[in-house]
């Protein structure tokens, strides 16, 4: 900053750095313990009429406001509920734009989570597209969602919009 006496100060830099220790909470801990084992696991409250399976669960059936008590194993396959093409580089992110960020609903779950898509033609990514998880090598697994590197397209029939979020663990064979 200049020491020039005549320059009137109009702005100052006031950086604030605060240290925290994040703790995952019970539901997230259960989820991450399974991810550590290479498995995607959702949760639901069996008594709820809505029957929603949440992934990652935060401990409640959000539709009903009551605790999720049951774990539900999910598949590696998922359906694209929505997506966007990112053109802006993210600092410290090894992924180079343009790349796909998608809302994905794993088979057996009803609520989407956000992850990356790759090994795909960006221009042909579409809602209802079938994808599968590409996991890192087992020796690299940690308590983290990036144990899944990304999802890649499957050669399977598209899921119609009204069926997205309703595909069972058994998968999608196309319209019955």
């Amino acid at each position, binding site marked *: 900053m200049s020491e020039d006496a005549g320059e009137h100060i109009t702005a*100052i830099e*006031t950086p*604030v750095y*605060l*240290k*925290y*220790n*994040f*703790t*995952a*909470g*019970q*539901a*997230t*801990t259960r989820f991450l313990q399974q991810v550590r084992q290479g498995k995607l696991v959702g949760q639901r409250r069996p008594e709820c009429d*809505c029957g929603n399976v949440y992934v990652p669960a*935060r*401990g*409640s*059936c*959000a*539709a*009903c*406001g*009551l*605790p999720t008590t049951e774990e539900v194993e999910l598949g590696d396959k998922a359906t694209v509920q929505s997506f966007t093409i990112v053109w802006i580089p993210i600092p410290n992110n090894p992924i180079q734009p343009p790349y796909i960020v998608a809302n994905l609903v794993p088979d057996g779950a009803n609520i989407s989570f956000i992850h990356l898509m790759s090994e795909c033609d960006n221009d042909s990514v579409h809602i209802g597209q079938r994808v599968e998880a590409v996991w890192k090598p087992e020796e690299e697994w940690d308590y983290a969602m990036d144990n899944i590197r990304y999802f890649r397209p499957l050669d399977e029939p598209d899921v119609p919009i009204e069926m997205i979020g309703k595909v069972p663990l058994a998968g999608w064979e196309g319209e019955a």
Partner: protein
Amino acid sequence: MKDIAVVSFAQSDCRRDAGACNEVELIMPVIEQALQEVGLRNSQDVDFTCSGSCDYQQGAAFAFVMGVDALGAVPPIKESHVEMDAAWALYESMLKITMGQAESALIYGFGKSSPGELPTVLSQQLDPYYLAPLWVDSVSLAALQARVLLDRGIISEQDMAAVVSRSRANAKANNPHAQLAGDVSVEELLAEAEWVAPLRKHDCCPISDGASAMVIATVERARSWGRPFAVIKGIDHRMESHNIGARDLARSASTELAAEKAGVANGAVEVAELYAPFSHQEIILSRALGLDDSTEINPSGGVLAGNLMMASGLSRIGEVARHIMNGDIRRGVAHATSGPCLQHNLVAVLEAA
């Protein structure tokens, strides 16, 4: 103003570290309890929901939005949030009811302070040019205030220790959710070392994780639920300058004014629950409210027994309401505060129906 009733109240334990719970897991049990007491299922059964919390406490952006997962907000509900103590969420809910846009409301507050260093986090709510860059923490500012009172001979260290001793004893007798409770004498307390002199550690409220929740309604709606309730007869909140040096730290002018507007002096005050995070502040507040020996102050132990930052103010109101709903008393006063050295104060008068 139309009378509004407090119908139920629930509070979690005050725990130094609820690390194994996320905000949803903290909130869900108290919301469920507050609703069940009235026979309600979830937020769909009230007209409005409002919460109080501060994301800086746990360093998680939009933690308050995550909290909505505890409500059963499908289909969408009418919902709002204050980045303040939930006592102000109660205030907003009362406005909503007073305007005729709701007849009932669910209010909750939660605080998870354990992930960060709370007094340091609170330093960043200060003036960003003159104070925040110095990182003056909340305990130190309270200590400056305490010395003003001591230097002027308004209080003594014995008076401060007596507040703490009574808080611990009351918490032991009456408050299963307290973090600090027990029998400790003034002499034992004064024998402890100074921490941020003139404050000793026990003059400062503990740091606690937890949540509280309340259901309020119009008196007509409350009657229809067939449950005992307490009526909020007056409520007011006032704020003073952010410039600590410009305020008379020995008194609380904003509390005095809020008390006058809320009608504290219009009847006997049997119980007062005061949000005093530091021992000397309980004395400032009881003087500002014009309370004397006829009032039982902080029978719960107050926040010196456990401070759910962002829920403690709502809990003070809930504690007084519970005394009235139980039929123990007919009239009481609750107080909530926000900001350094009692900057912003809310006063509520509650009475039996």
